[in-house]
């Protein structure tokens, strides 16, 4: 099957399926719109504007994403927070990739008092730097997947390892977070989404990476990698983030998402319903 590869939103995409020119145009439009609205790495994005002056961001994605953030924030006791943008910038993960870490900065705990949302979009009552990194890529995978609903046959939408598939089963490796030539397990995906998160890429110094605890503004250190498998990519992506904290497993159970996570010391845990194979000392 044809594989269409391109770079967008800072990662490498692969779309496998019987796409024609208009399908590709539809995908490009969806990605461009999402990026223009939600990318913290663009000067001209709506999110960047909200970060400097506040105001309104019109987007149909606001309600699904912020509703999910509310659930994440509640489940993790505030460790996941959509206003973590300034915390990431404080550590150097900013639009210019300065990667010069300053003092850690906690995200505003009362984020839901600063940001309000409905089906039309969201409003920031004060300048607030939103970062949808906990689930935005999953949301975009779902949007692209929907845009390709009329493509016949098998379909794989893979955004740098976060993916959603339809049709034939896709055998997928769980990449070892400390050795990208190895896997810690494999899982068969069928009409499902799998999202992973790990601290090995998007890392720029000793203990500096992009998975932060919003309450402290510091990178996490207990869990090295997480994977979540569900019906939708956005929820799988969200759970993959939540699994870096206490409360992640409970939310996963609530949402019917199965998961695996690996600690920085090499131990792994999985949900009771995880069906994939794990390569461990006690298989």
């Amino acid at each position, binding site marked *: 099957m044809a594989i269409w590869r391109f*770079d967008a939103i*800072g*990662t*490498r995409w692969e779309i496998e399926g019987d796409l024609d020119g208009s399908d590709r145009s539809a995908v490009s439009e969806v990605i461009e719109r999402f990026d223009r609205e939600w990318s913290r790495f663009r000067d001209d994005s709506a999110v960047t504007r909200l970060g400097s002056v506040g105001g309104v961001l019109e987007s149909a994605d606001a309600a699904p994403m912020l509703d999910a953030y509310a659930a994440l924030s509640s489940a993790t006791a505030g460790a996941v927070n959509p206003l973590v943008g300034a915390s990431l910038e404080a550590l150097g993960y900013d639009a210019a*990739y*300065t*990667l010069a870490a300053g003092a850690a900065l906690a995200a505003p705990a009362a984020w839901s008092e600063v940001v309000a949302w409905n089906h039309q979009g969201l409003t920031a009552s004060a300048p607030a730097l939103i970062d949808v990194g906990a689930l935005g*890529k999953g949301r975009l995978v779902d949007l692209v997947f929907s845009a390709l609903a009329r493509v016949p046959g098998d379909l794989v939408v893979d955004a*740098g*390892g*976060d*993916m959603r598939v339809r049709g034939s089963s*896709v*055998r*997928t*490796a*769980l*990449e*070892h*977070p400390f050795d990208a*030539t*190895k*896997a*810690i397990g*494999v899982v068969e*995906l069928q009409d499902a989404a799998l*999202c*992973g*998160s*790990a*601290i*090995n*890429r*998007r890392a*720029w*110094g000793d203990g500096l990476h992009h998975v932060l605890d919003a309450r*402290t503004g510091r990178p*996490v*250190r*207990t869990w090295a*990698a997480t994977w979540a498998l569900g019906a939708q990519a956005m929820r799988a992506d969200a759970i993959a983030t939540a699994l*870096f*904290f*206490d409360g992640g*497993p*409970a939310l996963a159970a609530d949402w019917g998402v199965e998961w695996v996570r690996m600690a920085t*010391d*090499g*131990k*792994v*845990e*999985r*949900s*009771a319903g*995880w069906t994939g194979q*794990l*390569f*461990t*000392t*006690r298989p």
Partner: protein
Amino acid sequence: MIRTNVPQSVRTASALVGVAGLFVLAGCSGAADAETDKGAGTDSSSSSSDSGSGTYADGTYTADGSYQTPETVESISVTLTLADGKVTDVEVTGDPQAPETEEYQSKFIDGIADEVVGVALDDLKVSRVSGSSLTSGGFNAAVESIKEQAAS
């Protein structure tokens, strides 16, 4: 009074203990008149603003504390030795990197603490790989630039 006579080694330890949030000196020598400091500030014990009028019995004191980090519940144990009213020895034990062992009991979690054994991707018939998202362009270039600066 401990606060007025702390040598540097104690200041260092105090920062650690401060993280514990709850620092209670439990005298091993019975009803020690060690001060109980429940301040949760991260460096409350290293403050030197208090007067130096208090006295402590010489001896060895141990304090145990536990605290919730974003990801774990950590425990720590600190032992101080006092001689002539001054701290002469400090020992801090604990494993601040320990995974959240309590969590393993959770009903949502299966597969307790199995150790990973990586298998080479080349040996697996897989069509996809999932892990941390691949990075592209700008980020990788920025990291390379930093490495070069650090090396020069």
